[in-house]
């Protein structure tokens, strides 16, 4: 069997193909590349550590089970986050949980200014904005939070986000646009 991983320079797709041929070390390398961002995306999207870890594990298990049939039809990263994204949606459906966008009669949309953020004095200066940004992202509607996290956390391009979410390209752009505008505004107001 030819090892095509080629060390750190091998592409994700090559590593996955190598794993499909039985090279477990290739998977370990692949896993090491994406483990942090995938879990970060899930934790910040679901805002529940236990559920996020469960879905994180299930996402990787699906990758593992699909190894024999894997074909390079898209970037591995896109594929991985598509799996994770769909599991997130499945989770919400299973829970029968209405997204945080649901407004009771008379309720108002969540006000980002009310979002609890750690006291600035308790935060390192370099992390204060980041923590505030995280809090603002957490208060975004599901779809906007999704695209923002896929962009910032996973580092996906808008085109890749379209592929992951299956949404209309214009819809993705608009979500990103409104989310970014809102985040900037909140960050400025917080200064």
């Amino acid at each position, binding site marked *: 069997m030819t090892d095509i991983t080629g060390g750190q320079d091998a592409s994700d797709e090559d590593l996955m193909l190598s794993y499909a041929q039985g090279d477990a070390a290739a998977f370990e390398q692949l*896993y090491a590349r994406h483990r942090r961002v995938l879990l970060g995306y899930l934790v910040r999207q679901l805002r529940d550590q236990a559920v996020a870890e469960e879905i994180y594990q299930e996402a990787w298990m699906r990758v593992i089970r699909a190894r024999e049939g894997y074909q390079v039809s898209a970037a591995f990263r896109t594929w991985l986050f598509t799996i994770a994204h769909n599991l997130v949606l499945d989770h919400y459906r299973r829970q029968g949980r*209405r997204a945080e966008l649901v407004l009771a009669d008379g309720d108002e949309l969540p006000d980002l200014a009310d979002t609890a953020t750690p006291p600035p004095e308790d935060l390192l200066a370099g*992390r204060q904005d980041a923590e505030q940004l995280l809090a603002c992202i957490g208060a975004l509607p599901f779809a906007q939070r999704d695209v923002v996290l896929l962009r910032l956390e996973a580092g996906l391009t808008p085109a890749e986000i379209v592929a992951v979410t299956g949404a209309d390209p214009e819809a993705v752009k608009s979500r990103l646009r409104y989310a970014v505008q809102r985040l900037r505004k909140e960050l400025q107001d917080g200064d």
Partner: protein
Amino acid sequence: MATEQQKRPEDNIDDLVSIYSEVRGQEPTSDLDASILAAARAETAGQSPAEPRRPVAEAWRTPFAAVASVMLCTVIYFSLPDPDTADYLPIPGVADPGFEVPAAPAEPAAVGSMAAAPAAAEKMAPQRPAAASMAEAPADRVSSTPLVSYSEDRAAEPVPPQSAGESGRYESFADHQARGRAATVTAESEEPAGERSPEAGVAAKSAPAETMVRLATPATSAPEPPDTRTLPQPFLDALRDGLVQRIHVAGDMAAESDLHGMGSEAATVPAFTLETSCAMPAGQDGAPVLLLLLGEQEAAPVAAAGESAGSTEASALARSSEALCVRVVTGQDGLPEAFAHAWASMRADGTVRRLLDQYGLQQWSPR
């Protein structure tokens, strides 16, 4: 610069990327890493991937847990009848079972021994001797051989007749309280109901009410589901799950659903067609106000979306069709006043509640 950012912010978010980099990613626990890597290795080694660790709530979904739960519920269920009062167990749904009600046995059947079954069965169904045990019954008669079973402290399960005219299996619970033990005898008689002695039914009917234990109730009809004929199920599911965020109305008045990433299901949502010539604003991309309007007419669910600038027409549509604002998507700075008036009007006359009930939806309110 600001103008540039408003035009293409998705291409110019370096500032946010920079800030976010401080908190980007999260380190999985070593256990999590180990379990996934072990599964990956097991897969390449030809083994089934190890079952990932599951939280307790997830573990209960396993088939074993489901079976165990059913068994537990069954045991609890059949432990409910009071052995002191439950003498007869009528067949659910059969007004006059017509079975022979045995008198309290003069000699209690031995408890815990299947060898004593024939004697008890003969008392119960003297027309045909019971097999001493299921194992001794002819193979071709296992299903119809009188069944005899014993239990210490519970009434056994009644079995409804398998067809009209068939008597089914009946149970009698002998009161052995005085003797400090209890026995349940289940026997099946194959005698046609019409050949039974009339005393049997009389005896059954004459049993004290408090001794009659109904173990099952006739099936009741399920409540009528909300009328959802006008809406595709995936769409309704998405509504209830709170996953619907936008209904995009294109220039040709055909609505294109955008359930933000619901994949193939989203593609199954048919286009909604506006019935009026409501002039929706061109370029719905990024519309700050997006509403789903359900027309009162069942055949005409209406989806409409509009920006603030174009909401007058949508509001007129809402009024003309007595439509219901089901969903308001965030991002707007507030709904146009016309919408608020239409909404208030529909709430006041009960239209909102009626349509919510009709479609089984939760109410949202514009602000």
